[in-house]
């Protein structure tokens, strides 16, 4: 199992997203600014700050749904479907305590009927697709058990 992209999330029992934090003003950015992925130098996005140094920080595991949808048709390449025939999947934009909204797929087995604006979710890591190197993993949002989704 290999993350489909390097440096965006940790794995293990309690995975977390990784962000870049400006060392001068503390503004955090996701996806992280990775020169390994070909990014130019880090430039802080805060117009009042000219910071060019960043630390890698973990974001909160839990957040609340800003909005959500699903993909009922197979998206075009470079999306690689997990299997054949294509299985629809849900997507959620999640507001984190760090003040940003992060898009992600919703965990396997959950659909739009399990979600509402405001639903609490947590980060999990699951298989996105399988290629010649094996399983490629991605972060996903999973509704926290015990919530009334229809509340």
């Amino acid at each position: 199992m290999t993350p489909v992209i390097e440096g965006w999330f940790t794995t293990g029992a309690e995975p977390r997203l990784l962000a870049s934090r400006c060392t001068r003003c503390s503004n955090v950015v996701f996806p992280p600014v990775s020169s390994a992925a070909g990014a130019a130098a880090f430039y802080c996005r805060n117009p009042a700050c000219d910071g060019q140094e960043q630390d890698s920080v973990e974001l909160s595991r839990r957040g609340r749904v800003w909005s959500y949808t699903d993909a009922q048709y197979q998206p075009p390449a470079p999306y690689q479907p997990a299997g054949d025939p294509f299985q629809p999947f849900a997507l959620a934009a999640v507001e984190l305590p760090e003040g940003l909204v992060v898009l992600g797929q919703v965990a396997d087995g959950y659909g739009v009927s399990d979600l509402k604006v405001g639903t609490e979710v947590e980060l999990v890591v699951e298989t996105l697709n399988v290629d010649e190197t094996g399983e490629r993993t991605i972060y996903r949002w999973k509704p926290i058990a015990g919530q009334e989704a229809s509340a």
Partner: protein
Amino acid sequence: MSVVITGAGMHPWGKWGRDFTEYGVHAARAALADAGIAWADVDLVVGGETVRNGYAGYVAGSTFAQALGWNGARIATSYAACATGAQAIDTARARILAGMSEVALVVGADTTPKGFLAPNAGERWNDPDWLRFRLLGMTNPAYFALYARRRMDLYGATSEDFAQVKVKNAKHGLANPYARFRKESTVAEVLASPVVCDPLHLLDICATSDGAAAVVLTSADYAKRHGIASPVTVAAVSTVTPTFPNTVIDMPLLATDSSAVTGVPERTFKEAIGQAAYEEAGIDPSEVDVAEVYDLSTALELDWIEDLQLCKRGEAEALLRAGDTTLGGRIPVNPSGGLACFGEAVPAQAIAQVCELTWQLQGRAEGRQVEGAKVGITANQGLFGHGSSVILSV
């Protein structure tokens, strides 16, 4: 000094796959004929660059100038994704205001591929427009669906409301000779079409089209000297970019800025686009008679109505249900039929909005006229921070 539109012209929207130059020349000649100005008198051509999913395509300014026959005019090419046309108009306006141009021709034209807009080939692990497909399978309609679902959960919008936007726009476009789809629609028909991205059905989402639009801009003084009838004043062209932090998720990005350091801004990006236009024009939202907004989805039209301050946040459904946004209502929206009837031809679309408002303010929008319209506003937003809103007045 002010800048006026002296002529507007379009090539009908459709799907033929021919060279975009053909559509552009047709629209350009129609606009020049409408203005009664000879091509030889044009001293500036601004072309809206053709695009393939957010990437620059062809050098449009010189393409159109060459196709019309080199006349020595200066040229410029604008690229601002869906907002390309407005930026092209802004460039032409600036040169006229600076006294560096008398007659400017602005042209946008495109031909588009079938199906979902997909990114260009090749692996680009640092490009959000590639990563959103590779990592998340996040298509354009999925972004539209996020905004639509939020309206449902926050403001009580229903699928029937979204369908009603389509029904309204389909009716508006019936008499528009430039619209690609000219057929009435029903709520039942929209709801029976397949769900693409919940809650949006296929008929809630606009198609991609071939098409072209052009306008001729001159100074008000030039129009007067040449006895041009009923010029329309360009009261504002807003092409603002976002202000940090941009806290609404924007296509094709995977996350918003963080508001933790600076707090949530007073206005969202889309609200700021319209506000900048109102301030530049010195016009209040209550003075607007007609609006052409970018209905990439039915639900997005409702967002724009609020972003342009034509009603309060969360009240667009009430406006729609009361018939206020229908022809004959208080503030008709998309009398042209909008993208619902046109489908999107990216570099032409913002210019097409301006063509429609020009004809509306001249009282020439046959079969879809907003009676007595004096002030009109357009709005759209392009990928990567391109805003556009144009206010016209007579």
